[in-house]
């Protein structure tokens, strides 16, 4: 499945109040192209922090759904975060892992154990009440429906095709400016 298809399937299932957090790299770029109305934070560096930031955000916003769009490289860097999430068990946190088996932005180098990993099995082993892998594009919709129907935390793994994802030029805004815009979208002007 292409990244843009996967992010579109997620967008179609979001509530207006849901908040999106994107891990760094190509996943966030795919999400940006949808121009979704949901408040979205692009976590950028430090790499490996996506799940932890999503957990903090979910605990701070218990009345909103929080969806983490997470690359496999970012998640692999810090698998222990799945234990913290399972322990805290935020019912409003859902994670979509984009599994293309390689560091797309970094040049396409393979992940350690690429092709052998089951992130859903790791999540279940970490204590997630539910996690699933999408076998192919045809099976994606019912699995995603279940992710959003169930109480969190939940995790779904998308098999993602290798796509060109050239290293983009720097955006117009500094990360701190992106943060302010996100917080204003979420909380309103202070």
């Amino acid at each position, binding site marked *: 499945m292409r990244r843009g298809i996967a992010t579109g399937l997620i967008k179609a299932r979001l509530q207006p109040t849901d*908040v999106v*957090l994107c891990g760094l790299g190509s996943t966030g770029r795919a999400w940006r192209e949808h121009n979704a109305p949901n408040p979205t*934070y692009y976590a*950028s*560096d*430090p790499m*490996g*922090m996506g*799940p*932890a*930031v*999503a*957990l*903090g*955000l*979910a*605990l*701070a*916003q218990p009345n909103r759904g929080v969806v983490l769009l997470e690359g496999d490289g970012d998640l692999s860097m*810090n698998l*222990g*975060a799945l*234990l*913290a999430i399972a*322990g*805290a068990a935020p019912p409003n946190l859902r994670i979509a892992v984009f599994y293309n088996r390689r560091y797309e932005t970094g040049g396409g180098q393979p992940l350690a154990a690429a092709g052998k990993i089951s992130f859903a099995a790791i999540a279940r082993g970490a204590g997630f009440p539910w996690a699933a892998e999408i076998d192919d594009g045809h099976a994606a919709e019912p699995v995603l429906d279940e992710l959003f129907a169930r109480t969190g935390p939940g995790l779904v793994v998308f098999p993602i095709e290798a796509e060109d994802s050239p290293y983009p030029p720097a955006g117009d805004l500094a*990360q*701190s400016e992106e*943060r302010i815009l*996100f*917080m204003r979208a*979420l*909380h309103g002007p202070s």
Partner: protein
Amino acid sequence: MTAPAQLVLAELKACGIDLVASLPDKWLSDILDAVEADADVTHVRVTREDDGMGICAGAYLGGRKAALVCQNAGVLLSTNVLAGYAFHHQIPFLVLAAYRGREDDAYYYQIYKGRITVPVLEAIGVPYGILDDPGDFKRIRDYQRQSQLARMPAVLLMTSRALAGRG
């Protein structure tokens, strides 16, 4: 005299901090027990200290104040994350770290941490303070305020003298 753990918890709550991420150290047991026992504070156990910082950052984005309680080894491990939130995202939170490896620490394997913690914090430019007496816990609120004003984390290094209530 109020126990150091209760002083720390009371200071955190006075700062509006009601979410604490932690990774244990023997010196921190009383604080972590107090946090766990307080129904008004959410306690999240992590497997790496930088995850605790990520949780604090996410909580701030969501409008909730959080702190990380860990050993100074966790500060050393997390320098990339600490600097990233200080300078890249500009997100405030407190790190309360047991300051292991100084002259009052009887374990040889802690010594290197005592030697390099402050030089590392100086090098990455993240504000820090040393709490060396139970009375110093009152300064937690000062560092919290400065952290919020400066939009960057602050690290508080707690000595055995402070944590054991030997002021």
